[in-house]
């Protein structure tokens, strides 16, 4: 049996499959299907310094091979997370990643400081939420912004720091390099691609927020391309995501340069998707005589 363990920034994961932030809440709903220890890790719903109510509905629209969301970071705030959610999550036998979003660098730093005093395993810096005016994306779409916010949080964050990148940029390699230079321990990518749908009868955008983030299988080729481009610019590990719905997609992203993966929208299609992807990945490795999943990382043979 091939080894599915991976190590991201010093954090060992029993397998490379992490639940993506925003699709998995704080884990309770999906623990009805299988033990959360089935997963390599959980990136929790994005949290902010104070509770956020989220955007008005509709927040969801289906698209060809995907969906748009504009939830708007509805969450109970970092203190609630630390007091009510984290203690339970830490009993589940999987790696817990706190995903943080803020209006200002001070927000991010305060949250990083608070979380540094907990037993959360890793912090994911969300500078790529496209659905709130001030949810961090203002930091995530320029190299200077990524570098300054990463460097600022780095000073307060005693946990391994993973920076989640937006695909809504012209040169993802430059952005990834900026995060690494500023002290990121890992990169996760890609967040959703900004999109829009219009109801042709009412002539209104389907989403009340007008625009939303595109996720789902439609995103996969963009994610593969961007992970590949970023992997050629940075040495820190990349956690790849964007449209993974089956094990073959997972293999592609690993070959493109990812060391671990996040699964998101696939939960909505099939709550058991990560179990099926894990088993498919295991069989692929065994069938091809690959001893460890880590050997797939960046093993693409480019033309």
């Amino acid at each position, binding site marked *: 049996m091939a080894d599915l363990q991976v190590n991201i920034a010093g954090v060992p994961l029993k397998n490379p499959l992490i639940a993506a932030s925003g*699709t998995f*809440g704080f884990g309770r709903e999906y623990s009805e299907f299988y033990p959360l220890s089935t997963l390599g890790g959980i990136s929790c719903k994005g949290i902010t310094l104070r509770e956020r109510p989220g955007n008005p509905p509709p*927040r969801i629209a289906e698209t060809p091979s995907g969906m748009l969301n504009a939830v708007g970071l509805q969450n109970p705030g970092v203190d609630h997370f630390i007091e009510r959610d984290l203690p339970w999550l830490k009993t589940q036998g999987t790696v817990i990643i706190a995903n943080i979003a803020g209006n200002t660098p001070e927000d991010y730093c305060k949250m990083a400081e608070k979380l540094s005093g907990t037993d959360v395993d890793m912090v994911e810096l969300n500078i790529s939420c496209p659905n709130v005016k001030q949810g961090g994306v203002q930091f995530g779409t320029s190299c200077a912004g990524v570098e300054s916010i990463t460097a600022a949080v780095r000073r307060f964050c005693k946990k391994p720091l993973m920076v989640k990148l937006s695909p809504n940029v012209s040169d993802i390699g430059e952005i990834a390099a900026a995060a690494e230079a500023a002290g990121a321990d890992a990169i996760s990518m890609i967040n959703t691609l900004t999109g829009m749908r219009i109801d042709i009868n009412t002539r209104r955008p389907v989403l009340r927020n007008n625009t939303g983030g595109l996720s789902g299988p439609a995103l996969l080729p963009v994610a593969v391309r961007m992970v590949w481009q970023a992997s050629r610019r940075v040495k820190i590990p990349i956690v790849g995501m964007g449209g993974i719905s089956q094990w073959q997609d997972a293999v592609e992203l690993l070959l493109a340069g990812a060391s671990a993966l996040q699964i998101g*929208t696939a939960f909505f299609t099939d709550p058991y998707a990560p179990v099926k992807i894990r088993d498919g990945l295991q069989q692929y490795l065994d069938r091809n005589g690959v001893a460890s999943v880590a050997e797939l990382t960046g093993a693409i043979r480019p033309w």
Partner: protein
Amino acid sequence: MKYDTMLCGLIRKNRLAEDIFDFTVEAGKLAEAACPGQFAHIYVPGKTLRRPISICEIDRDHKTLRFVFQVRGEGTRLLSQAEPGDRLDILAPLGRGFDLGGTGRKAVFVGGGIGVPPLLEAAKPFGENAAVLAGFRSGNAVILKEDFERAGNRVMIATDDGSSGHHGLVTDLLAGLACDVIFACGPTPMLKAVCRAAKERGVPCQVSLEQRMACGVGACLGCAVRLRRETGEEYYGHVCKDGPVFDAAQVVWED
């Protein structure tokens, strides 16, 4: 088990009206766990998102669930093409259903169009204590009348064009009808009118809502609905987990 996915064999399929289909599936433990007013999230091959469909009837003895749904778009059109013998990937039972309370009370059920099916399983135990007011576009869109009558319910029909029953709004039928509790499902203007009537009478009212939905279990927070706490504070709850059935006094109607 609260909910799970299961491959459910389609055992009966009927077409009740032009765009209304009636499926009965073998649902094992899902049927045993289901309550009136809950819903199922049904996978449609090739679609990223499942389709939330309300549960119309629950047969615990035969472990079957009945769904009556309308073809609204491509997903439900594809779903309507399933044939007996096919297996449907169903995630159920989901959400909070109706709180029936004492079935000795006089209950009024108000349904509009495809809002009628989720009321059937809730109305059955009320027998002749239940009046069912059901509104449709026209006489040929009327569904489930005999099903309610078989349970002993008194059914009154309203149609937009007057081709069956009362010519006008289904909520017109509420006039002069005494009751202890109201249950409703249908289009928003109808629900607003029902809630207003319930408030005027000081009668408790439960409404079943819908919203565009992704996960179906309360994780993604997509299917937001504006609610009001007893303190008056407003917040976004979620149709899939906090509902789909809400106490009318909780709901803040938007737009």
